């Protein structure tokens, strides 16, 4: 149980992705909250959180990168690791995520046998850059 007692917040609007990722995380003991939209204050209210799993293509005018910046501007969230999980073009997304200070990047489709351990690694403070080419 890699994620026993961990609370995770997942930004994701695609039902299939939610299903798969939630399944992979919960079977390792994590408690997964969904965030389907809202302000940074809404996020702060959900503290304590061990990590935020963020799809970069979220509904609305603000994309994941913008929302990341807004979150990081909240001092309450400064220490919460945020990992991008995206089906975007990896080359651009990884480079941008690295430069913005994301805790990691995991390309979709997530690997069933690795996803939970990658999240655990990120919570432990180590970066994961998985562009998943091949």
């Amino acid at each position, binding site marked *: 149980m890699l994620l026993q007692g961990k609370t995770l917040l997942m930004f994701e609007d*695609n039902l*299939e*992705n939610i299903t*798969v990722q939630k*399944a992979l995380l919960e079977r390792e003991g994590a408690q997964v909250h969904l965030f389907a939209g809202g302000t940074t204050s809404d996020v702060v209210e959900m503290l304590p959180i061990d990590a935020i799993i963020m799809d970069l*293509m979220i509904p609305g005018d603000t994309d994941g990168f913008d929302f990341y910046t807004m979150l990081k501007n909240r001092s309450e969230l400064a220490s919460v690791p945020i990992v991008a999980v995206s*089906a*975007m*073009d*990896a*080359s*651009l997304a*990884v*480079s*941008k995520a*690295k*430069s913005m200070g994301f805790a990691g990047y995991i390309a*979709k*489709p*997530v690997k*069933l046998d690795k996803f939970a351990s990658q999240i655990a690694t990120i919570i432990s403070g180590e970066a994961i*850059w998985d*562009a998943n*080419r*091949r």
Partner: protein
Amino acid sequence: MSIFQRSLRLSMVVAMMLIAVVPALVIIVGIVVASNNQARTQSINQLSSLAVTKTDNIELLLSNGEDLLELMLNDQRQLPRMRDVATSLDRRLSPTQQVSSYLQEVQETQSVFDELFLYTRTGEVRSSSTTSLQGEFIVSLPFYRDSIDGVRTHPIFVEPETDKPTVVITLPIFDDDRVVGILAGRVSEAQIVDIMTDYDGLGTTGDNFLVSSTTQQAVTPLRFVNDTLTASTFAIDEVLAGNSGNAQYENSRGETVYGVYRWIETIGAGMVLEIEQGEAVGAFRNFVLLSGGVAILAIIAALGMVWWIQQQLIAPLTQLTTTTSEIAAGNYGEQVHIQSKNEIGVLAASFNLMSREIKNLFDNLEQRVADRTRDLVEARDEAQKANNAKTAFLATTSHELRTPLNAVINYTGLIDQGYWGSVTPEQSSALNTISKSGQHLLNLINDLLDMSKIVSGSLEVYKSEVDLNSEIKDVAEIAQGLLENDNVHLITEIEPDLPPLFGDSVRIRQIMINMVSNACKFTASGHIRLVATKQNDLFLFKVEDTGIGIEPEDYDVVFAEFQQTASGVTKGKGTGLGMSISKNLAEAHSGAVWFESVYGEGTTFYLKLPFNKQTQLN
């Protein structure tokens, strides 16, 4: 510009100097020198011939004198009387009067002698054509002693009483072979002086005179000096030493003269003839002046030529160059004002036409550039817009194509793992096929999207520091997973602690995985060797396999877009884009991908990337 003009003008002046002025000056100098030489030669010749003539005249005079005296002594009527006069002890007892009368008579009939006289062996003058010497003793006179010894013509001397040049001819009177007296004649001083004061052929500055060896003085009158000449000159010294010749020297008046001197033994005197150099040369003055005039005309003509060329060529040229500079400085349409009808005029007219044309063109050009710039800006904006749209479309498409595939892949995986209830082995096998096909489709989509970026020119690399060590470790792990069976061994030779490389980590990894997966795909047995090293400022990654190799005719196909080698087609995997994409990605990093292969034995693919941080400008 001004240096150009000056130097052109200067070079022309120098050229003219060389062509006209220098030769003219050389000719002038040559003519002056030649004239002087010619003047001297001519003067010397003239003086020499005069000297010969005058010497001959003097000697003729003397020989006439001797002949006359001999004639007198041959007069058998007079000879005994003369002997008597010479021998009688008392002159009053001898026929001195008759002899004197005879001498006087002869004297009057000829002009050779001024005076005829007869003296005894002891030097007492017994008879004379004049009374002046009668009864005198002439022992002290210079000719006396020699006359007794038989010398006939005596050295010239200046008679102290008369201060006249005097030449005396004496003939001895014999009595029984014994000299008893002397018949003497004083040669006409006027005749000698006439010869030596005839200045014909001596111009206006020429002079001639006789110099006595006994007195070391000129004994004939000087043309320009009344006094007796005592000064010594080169010619006087030479002639008194008995020499004859010619020379250029200073005369007694300090004038430079050409002179000829001639020793006349019979009268013991030297004849000197001289003419001033100035007069001698003056004869050639007209010739020199003419030549000099011609030379000066040549110089003036040369200078005139310089002036003319300056007017005709350099001035218009200067105007042209100045105006050209004006045009070059941006004053289009400047005109030159040259009226001449010659080639320069034609050039000027063409130049003006060209200048106006340039102005027109330039005016039009500005408008055209503005128009074209506006068009280009519009086109650029259009292209930019189109490109942005294309990039956005590709990004969206990429995302939209992958999302459903993600669901397919992950759902089949979850089902296979028994997440939604247990599955039979047959079902598991089917699910595995779905999953693999999905993954394959995902790879194809990724390749197609990459290729479309490359083709559309919108491929971008996102550079940052890449940790090669961890990337290569991952690649090696992936390679291990890709090996199709146990007959293939993976060998890794990775240099530890490779420095970070500035590049796009995703893309570099993509290239390496592509190389590795190709090797795995085409190698059924043997080994696959991964080598990663740093060579100077290059990162070198090598994947060597013992696979089927590449046929030489397929070499070009390897990197060609949308093409696969025959064996690749047979394998039925991939799009044929992998190596083409890898090559483009490497080149986008200023690197390269290439291979070596022996068909049937294996292939080695190489990747070379610069560590150099300056490549970030890509």
